[in-house]
């Protein structure tokens, strides 16, 4: 609403006037832009969402070769007690063969995508915890399926191996490992 003519009139005092008009116009622009902020700000995750509790999962009933899917921050998290064969198959893979060589493990940032770095760690190699959301476009992959007998996303055909690493298909990254820890032998806290 504060459009204005900045053309100096003959005989006027162009500099002082122009300065006034310019300042007013700038104030209008700054004010308008600032007002836009709350309207955008309100769309960010709100305080209650950000503070969402971590999830504690009892995995004592999960024997070798069994999986569990729990919900964390609105997304599925796969918890799998892998079989010996699965672990061995995953360990046998050379890093060079991987499409994404980064572990994508929030607990050890920037690590290499070895099977150990993808799993729950030394002595816990059989445990793997991943966000079950395909890194392509977010579908939930099927377990123990696909060319590598790991996970297979039916939406667009992404194949993950038994360590949840992307091997073939359109997905760009390995399935992400959320922050988690074993708080006891049978309890995992995710988040």
């Amino acid at each position, binding site marked *: 609403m504060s459009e204005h003519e900045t053309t100096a009139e003959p005989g006027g005092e162009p500099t002082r006037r122009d300065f006034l008009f310019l300042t007013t116009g700038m104030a209008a622009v700054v004010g308008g832009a600032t007002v836009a902020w709350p309207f955008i700000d309100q769309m960010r995750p709100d305080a209650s969402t950000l503070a969402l509790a971590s999830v504690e999962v009892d995995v004592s*009933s999960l024997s070798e070769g069994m999986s569990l899917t729990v919900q964390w921050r609105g997304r599925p998290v796969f918890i799998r007690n892998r079989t010996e064969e699965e672990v061995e198959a995953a360990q046998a893979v050379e890093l060079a063969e991987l499409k994404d060589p980064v572990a994508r493990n929030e607990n050890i940032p920037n690590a290499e995508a070895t099977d150990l770095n993808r799993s729950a760690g030394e002595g816990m190699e059989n445990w793997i915890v991943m966000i079950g959301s395909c890194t392509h476009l977010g579908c939930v992959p099927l377990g123990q399926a696909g060319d590598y007998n790991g996970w297979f996303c039916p939406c667009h055909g992404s194949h993950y191996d038994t360590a949840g690493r992307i091997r073939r298909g359109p997905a760009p990254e390995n399935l992400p490992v959320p922050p988690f820890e074993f708080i006891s032998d049978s309890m995992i806290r995710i988040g």
Partner: protein
Amino acid sequence: MKKLVSGLLSLAFLAGLAMSGAAFAQEEEHETPHYPLHKPEHVDWSFAGPFGHYDKGQLQRGLKVYTEVCAACHSMDRVAFRNLEDLGYSEDQVRTLAGNYEVEDGPDAGGDMFMRPATGSDTFPAPFANPEAAAASNGGAVPPDFSLIAKARAVERGFPNFVFDIFTMYAENGPDYIHSLLTGYEEAPEGTEIPQGTYYNPYYINGPSLAMAPPLSEGIVTYDDGAPETVEQYSRDVSAFLMWAAEPHLEERKALGFKVIVFLLIFGTLLYFTKKTIWSRIEH
């Protein structure tokens, strides 16, 4: 033309008077006698006025009064433990504090509900399972939830106070009322009949007496910051705490408001001179 403008302005002012009629008219019993019998007394709150801010020490004491006294009957459903960081507690302190409470969660794998220690994202657990249980334990009167109580109680201000309130920014009706109520219990005057099981309090908004017994007494809560352990002090602290519970963004609101109004005044001044310069080209 000036006349009309001033006329419209005074009209707007009068409209202001009328509209505030609405603001103060609620909750008031107009059949004789009028309640409350006494108007709430004004307390000098730290959060009043354009630069108002909460006194964190006071809020922490108020929290203590709430948890040790009020929480036995009054829920506070909308306040989460994580919000207590506003009171100056660290995340760890909040976790410890929340850990003292048990909340129901579930169902677990077997389909049963179970109790677990509260975390930051849980709200204060209610003392009663439902309003019916609350009423049954409290002589039929449901103790109101405390999340919004400081905004849900306002005693009629009356003319001309409600007009002055616009200019004095008076918005502390709630905490003033709570403080007056908590400190206002007294013996019923001779000849005043009050229903059995109620306590005479001339500051009570809905009658001469209420079902809640005087909840505070000297020394009932131990303060560790040296503040006096008196009913007066407890009452102030818990009133301030309840104001925070009802309006946690008050400080942010007032601070932002100051910036906005300063900007508008500067922008308005610039516009005034721009407009004057442009209009000086013509007779009007």
